């Protein structure tokens, strides 16, 4: 059997901040923003949540649903651009929290929004080579954006965790391919609280070049056409880019609809494409073929072709990602500032 996803779990913080709230504060027209970005509201983490807590909750869901014995997990990789520590890994916090003992490989990944899928590839390699029985790959973020910056409408929090293995696979990985280059479209220097970006440069030379190249090349390599796929999930920095990428590549609106979560939870960065992928798995049927293409600034895309197996029928998929998305609690801008600690307190 090929290596693939054995189990998956997600976590989305409950608070939501609407585009109306943000636009009101900065004197912008919310309808223009919604039309321009395709985002309506975003998730906001609570004061006591961070990438580590989100990773643990997503991982626990994956382990519980897949009935995995944590001690058989041989590797944990957490991909994020908001690890709680710059030096000290999130993967070890997850390891102790899920009770997987001490015999596991671990490391944190950073590759902007595609650090989670990079982790899936690493687990895949270790599983296929027989180094480990199960690997745990997590993409999670609690990304910060500067107040008043357009990114504020979309930068949000959430994560997804995947157990990768060769046994009891519910979605096998038929092929994976990465397209990578050194492209400074979006970055954050050491010590800076907020990222910087190249404005419109983040579009064609960055997102679109890598996403379409990876998608085109993986289809060339495997001989598939867009119509061979039941679903496609692209990285979602906003509601426009993935729709345009789909159109460029020849995918339909119906194929991308289930995985298009950004409008209601914002861009969860390393959680973005993988939460979308999880939403697809929630309704996928045996035999379905899924294309997943992530994108991380800096820049690169990881493309995957998944084939859903029969085992997904007995796999517990409740509560579904869309249930979680739809059970948010609204907060106002002031509360959001406090929760995201953008107000500097004395001492």
């Amino acid at each position, binding site marked *: 059997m090929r290596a693939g996803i054995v189990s998956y*779990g997600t*976590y*989305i913080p*409950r608070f939501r901040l609407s585009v109306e709230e943000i636009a009101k504060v900065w004197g912008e027209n919310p309808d223009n923003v919604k039309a321009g970005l395709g985002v309506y509201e975003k998730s906001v983490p*609570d*004061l*006591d*949540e*961070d990438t*580590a*807590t989100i990773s*643990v*909750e997503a991982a*626990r*869901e994956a382990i*519980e*649903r897949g009935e995995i014995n944590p001690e058989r997990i041989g590797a944990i990789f957490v991909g994020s651009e908001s690890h*709680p*520590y710059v030096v000290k890994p999130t993967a070890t*916090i997850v390891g*102790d*929290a*899920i*009770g997987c003992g001490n015999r596991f490989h671990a490391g944190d990944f950073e590759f902007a929004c595609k650090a989670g899928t990079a982790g899936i590839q690493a687990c895949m390699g270790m599983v296929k080579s027989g180094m480990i029985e199960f690997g745990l790959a997590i993409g999670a973020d609690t990304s910060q954006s500067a107040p008043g910056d357009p990114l504020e409408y979309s930068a949000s929090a959430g994560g997804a965790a995947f157990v990768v293995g060769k046994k009891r696979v519910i979605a096998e990985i038929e092929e994976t391919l990465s397209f990578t280059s050194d492209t400074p479209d979006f970055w954050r220097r050491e010590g800076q609280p907020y990222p910087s970006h190249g404005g419109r440069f983040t579009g064609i030379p960055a997102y679109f070049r890598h996403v379409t190249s990876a998608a085109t090349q993986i289809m060339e390599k495997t001989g598939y056409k867009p119509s061979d796929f039941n679903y496609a999930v692209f990285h979602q920095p906003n509601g426009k880019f993935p729709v345009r990428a789909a159109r460029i590549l020849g995918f339909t609106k119906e194929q991308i609809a289930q995985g298009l979560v950004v409008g209601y939870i914002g861009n969860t960065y390393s959680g973005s494409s993988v939460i979308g992928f999880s939403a697809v798995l929630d309704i996928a049927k045996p035999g379905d073929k899924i294309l997943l293409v992530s994108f991380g600034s800096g820049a690169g895309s990881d493309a995957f072709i998944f084939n859903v197996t029969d085992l997904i029928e007995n796999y*517990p998929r*409740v*509560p579904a990602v869309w*249930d*979680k998305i739809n*059970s948010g609690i609204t907060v106002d801008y002031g509360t959001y500032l*406090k929760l995201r*600690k953008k107000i500097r*307190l004395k001492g």
Partner: protein
Amino acid sequence: MVERGDRMIPRFWRKIKYRYDIVGSVCENCGSKFYPPRNFCPICRRRSKIKEQRFNGRGKVLSYTIVHDTPDEFKLNKPYIVALIELDDGPIITSQVVCNPEEIEVGMRVVKTFRKYFEDGEDGVIYYGTKFVPEKIATNAKNF
């Protein structure tokens, strides 16, 4: 809590396993269950046969308080809820419950969640542990 630079890192590290998840002890001699963990059964004393036990993360609120006068490290979280929770497995745990103060009530069903408790300032260690959320709003309802 204690002054900066005096946080006793090894002391809290030793208990990570028991705080990140609800891991306590059971005495195989008398069957008593304990949380926090103990090395010694207070009922059996020298006849103790203590083993580690992970407890189910579901329970109900026995009593609660909403803390307004908060210690330094919880200043941002004010007001927060501290509750005595009786786990379905038996032991009673003191923990925080994350919900609106208007929602909490005696008898409410809750499930565990992994959260950050506090940080040792901007450059110190982050202390994680187990808190609880109301069962009816837990998004990972199956996750216990």
